[in-house]
């Protein structure tokens, strides 16, 4: 565990200096800060729109960071040849993969916390009060991005960062619609496809589990089950993906 933490700390320190990451964070911060500009054109719905905008921006920028950076963290080690000094040490493949993932994940959570904090503070300025219920969204974001990070790392094991980024983005989009798969089968009246649809429904990542933005803005109560589901689904799936990634690394060669 010590080795995992050592690698994650190193990855954290390295990624914190990444220009792309800093630019994205700055941009996210900037946009949240200027969200006030929607007030005059919101036709009385400034409250809702500013909240939607803030939540959307936090999620969008975290997604961008994962796609642009999460897909490179392993690839970079190989490209820069710093991996030689790691693989030749008594470090197991899973320790390396988990360590790298964890380092970036911690950084993303930190950025989300900062963006969220700014978001809440600006809420107070623009809307007069802090809506603490919004913090529920942060809980779900934390697990959503644990999952996405694992997906990005998984794809980056066997393809280039750009392709991995595109695939991750695709999975994110499709993951919002997996719950439609079952409906589709009924709609098309093709019971033969039921087995395939069921299989896809279970295998494909289901991101609607983490999408509580509407509930949070409208103060609709979120069931306790949802909290457990988000956490357990995310953790289990991520461990599986990272373990598969470790397997890739165990057979990888470094020319």
């Amino acid at each position, binding site marked *: 565990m010590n*080795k995992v933490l050592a*690698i994650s700390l190193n990855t954290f320190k*390295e990624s914190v200096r990444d220009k792309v990451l800093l630019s994205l964070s700055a941009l996210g911060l900037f946009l949240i800060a200027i969200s006030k500009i929607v007030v005059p054109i919101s036709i009385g719905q400034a409250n809702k729109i500013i909240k939607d905008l803030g939540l959307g921006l936090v999620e969008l920028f975290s997604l961008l960071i994962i796609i642009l950076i999460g897909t490179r963290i392993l690839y970079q080690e190989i490209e820069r*040849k710093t991996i*030689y*000094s790691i693989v*030749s*040490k*008594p470090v197991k493949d899973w320790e390396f993969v988990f360590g790298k993932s964890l380092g970036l994940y911690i950084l993303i959570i930190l950025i989300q916390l900062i963006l969220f904090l700014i978001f809440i503070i600006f809420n107070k300025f623009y809307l007069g009060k802090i809506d603490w219920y919004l913090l529920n969204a942060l809980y779900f974001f934390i697990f959503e991005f644990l999952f996405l990070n694992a997906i990005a790392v998984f794809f980056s094991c066997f393809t280039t960062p750009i392709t991995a980024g595109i695939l991750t983005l695709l999975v994110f989009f499709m993951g919002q619609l997996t719950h439609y798969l079952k409906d589709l089968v009924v709609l098309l009246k093709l019971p033969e496809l039921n087995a395939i649809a069921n299989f896809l429904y279970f295998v494909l990542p289901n991101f609607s589990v983490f999408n509580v933005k509407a509930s949070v803005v409208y103060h609709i109560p979120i069931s306790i089950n949802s909290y457990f589901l988000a956490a357990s689904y995310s953790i289990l799936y991520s461990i599986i993906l990272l373990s598969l990634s470790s397997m890739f690394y165990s057979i990888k*060669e470094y020319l």
Partner: protein
Amino acid sequence: MEIKVIEIKNLVKIYSSPFMRKKTYGINGLDLDVLQGEIFGLLGPNGAGKTTTLKIITGLLNPTSGSVKLWGGIDMIQAKKKMGFLPENPSFYRHLNGLELLIFYGRLYGKNIGLEDLEKTLDLVGLKKEITKRISNYSKGMIQRIGFAQALIGDPDLLILDEPLGGLDPIGRKELKDLIQKVNSGGKTVLFSSHILSDVEAICNRVGIIIEGKMKNIGYLREILKTDIRYTDIEIAGIKDKEWLKEYGKMRDEGDIIFLRTLDEVKKDRVIKLITEKGGRIISVAPQRESLEEHFLKTVHE
């Protein structure tokens, strides 16, 4: 009983492109033993398979066939705990400084190495003064040194160095060679590859010459090179009458100093005696055996 730290038998490494049927043999049936406590030099032309061999030993590459045993066949993770590796043209995390880098690698050995020991290692490689300098500001020589330091950090029994002297200036090379000998005298086994034959000749006990993925020649230096003296260079001063010296060998007159090369051991002994009798002074006597370079070139062309 000599303990074999590394035992390689019939190692084969094939590179095959998935789209082309063409197969390239990186290593084609290599045998190699490295004994405990020795400094073993791996020589070969570019593309011979030196780096490939070292990478297979350190686990960066997988062999296609053949056997590679470390310390009799222990588990790879256990072997890596006892091993330190310096890759060719090494690259390290640019955002860290020397000390942070060693702390990081130390933790990868599963050890929390004390600050004192780390500073000692940095001092050993001559980087103590640059302790807070970022790796991004390191010169090539400093990178080699920190590379050596990270290979030493786990106090390994075996050091594997791929072209450790590459890119260093003569002072740097001398210092690193001394370092290698120093750690070896402390009981560490060293396996290193190099192009610089004179360096290999200077510090290795045994050498192996790899040509096209096969070990062409392996053994103790003194055994590989012909032990017969091929010629002797004598540096003479204080002789006015020089013509008679030509009888004993090839002469080069540089005014005050005369260089004489004799091919015969018997003639050498006699001419030395005569020079002394005639009042001349012997400045130096240098017997020349076959150099490693000459041997190496001969092997390559065979």
